[in-house]
């Protein structure tokens, strides 16, 4: 192996420095002969060494020192793209619309139920409501929205000839998206004499007080 390497080196040296027609040329002439190859090779070596030993580490240091500010610019650019004024306005409008459909707080429940009772009365029905549990101690359903369960009983007023039809009207008006009331159960019973009794489970949604979610 060593002999092969030495032979290879000798052949390379010969190829590099051989002067045609002058096998015993002095070393200075041989070196001059090698210059066209040795010079660029040395130049490449120097450039490579400079690049990896000096230039690249310097560039990396510079980039590392600039990284916080470059990162800040990239972050701002990303936010500008993802949080445009228009998108923020649209979301705000939708949030206001959604908040408008909710009660301002649990304290408004009586008012809402009274309104519901008046509406039923106008349709020839008598409505009575009964709270489930302690109204003032309801755990919020989520971060911004709470709900209060309520039971309602509807009975047709005496002399209401269109009890079925008006019941459907009451229920339809109850379920519109603008009302903060959801129907969780509905039980209708009718005896042989035609007496109808309607029991409904209600869930009334309200907005948990938060100054950042405004109507």
């Amino acid at each position, binding site marked *: 192996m060593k002999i092969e390497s030495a032979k290879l080196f000798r052949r390379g040296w010969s190829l590099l420095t051989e002067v045609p027609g002058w096998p*015993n040329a002095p070393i200075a002439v041989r070196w001059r002969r090698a210059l066209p190859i040795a010079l660029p090779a040395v130049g490449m070596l120097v450039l490579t060494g400079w690049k990896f030993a000096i230039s690249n580490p310097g560039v990396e240091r510079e980039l590392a020192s600039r990284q916080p500010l470059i990162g800040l610019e990239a972050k701002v650019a990303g*936010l500008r793209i993802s949080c445009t004024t228009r998108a923020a306005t649209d979301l705000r409008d939708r949030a206001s619309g959604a908040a408008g*459909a909710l009660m301002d707080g649990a304290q408004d429940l009586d008012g809402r139920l009274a309104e519901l009772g008046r509406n039923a009365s106008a349709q020839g029905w008598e409505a009575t409501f009964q709270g489930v549990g302690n109204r003032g101690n309801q755990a919020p359903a989520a971060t911004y929205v709470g709900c209060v369960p309520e039971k309602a009983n509807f009975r047709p007023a005496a002399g209401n000839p269109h009890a079925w039809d008006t019941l459907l009207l009451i229920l*339809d008006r109850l379920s519109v998206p603008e009302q903060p009331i*959801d129907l969780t159960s509905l039980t209708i019973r009718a005896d042989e004499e035609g007496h109808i009794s309607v029991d409904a489970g209600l869930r009334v*949604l309200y907005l948990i007080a938060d100054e950042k979610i405004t109507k």
Partner: protein
Amino acid sequence: MIAPLAQERPAAPAPLPTRSGAGNAHSRKAALAIAWLGQSVEAAVFRGAARVGGWASSGAVATVSDFEAVLGDMLAALEFKGTDTLLLLEHEQFIHRVESAPSFSEAAARSYLQARVARHERECGEPVWCAQRTVSARQDASFMLHLLPTAFFDHLNQVLASRGLTLSRVYPLIVPLQYEVDAVAGAADEPVLVAAEMSGVTTILVGRSGGRLTFARTIRASWADEPVRVGVEVNRSLLYAKQQLGIVVRKVRLFGADAGVEAVRARCSEGREIAAADPHPLDWLQSIAGLAPHDPLNLVAGHLRRNRRRRLLRAGVAAALWLGLASMAVSAWSDGLARRAGAQSFAALRSREVALRADLDRLTRRREAMERDRKFISEATGLRMPPVPERALGYLAAMLPKSARLAEFKVAWDPSESRWAFHAAGTIEGDEDDAHAALDQVQQQLERSPLRAHFNETPRVLAALPVPPDSPSLFGFNMGGTFFED
């Protein structure tokens, strides 16, 4: 020092056709042709096939140093300004050896010869060599190896190179003598023996026309001083050709002193045609001047090929390295430019740092508000329940036939199962088949409705109820299931 050879010698023969046929490449170039045969040197300049002048050394030239000493005079006399030089060489260091190689393939013969040369190299040093196939009646693969020590060649080449001359061709004396064979044999395919003496060295060859060499040998014998020995050696060569190779030579051509010629005539003239002449190296030079450098009998053809390959390799490597260096330099320069541009752009960025931080605060607040709004909208809409009970009541009321009457209807959200359960009970008038058909229809319609009702596996109860006489039959039903089950 210029010898009036052109007047004393017979006119040069018309140039013979080259065996390679590639001599035209040099036809317009002037070439210095040197015949170093034994201890005498003669030279001439050829411009194509035309000999321009001639020169002969006055003293003995035995070594390269002697050759170097006379080279200046030669060049001055010939006023040669070119570089291309050919050498016709017969020297004691120039060895010619017959080798019998395996005849079954060219590759085997080549390998054998290379092995012989390698052995010679181990014993005597590296040679410059070429091989010439010989022909004989036995048709075996025999070759004439011409071996010249590389050290001798390099020294000679160096001497010539120092004068600006490029030694492109070296031929052994056998090559022009083969042309003499052609001249003697003419169109007839007869074997011819040619013997020539130059400065005490005699070359004897037997061949046929067309450059077909049978054998050749070189002996040290002066025709003037040892004519008897010359006669014996020529006769021995004739006998060798006859006995060993089965060739009967009837034509003999001699180039040497009269004493030697007479000795040969005395021994070998029976049944043979013997012609004699003075040696004329310049004519021999003329016969080989048109041979191309890549002629297989050019001793240095391989050497020159190898040198050319090395030159090309060197040029290629140098070009690649310079290109690589240039590209690296350009890359480094462009990197520097990019770095400067990056620094400028970073300086501009730094000047906007305060504004950027303010923007970041503003946009972060906006993003938080948006996240809050998004979450609120998700909660406010996600917590709403679909209007299933009222819709289910409406559907069922519309689907039930007029003969049916609902006694109980119940729909409730089951939070533990996360599903809507329903139950309906009532009565239906008519015969049993009509009641079944009506309930089947209601079931199918509810299953296909947007509520996608799924009925319990328990079969709906359909039982006849007691009714007064003469009243239509009355059946009670009871059905239940879930909505949005799938």
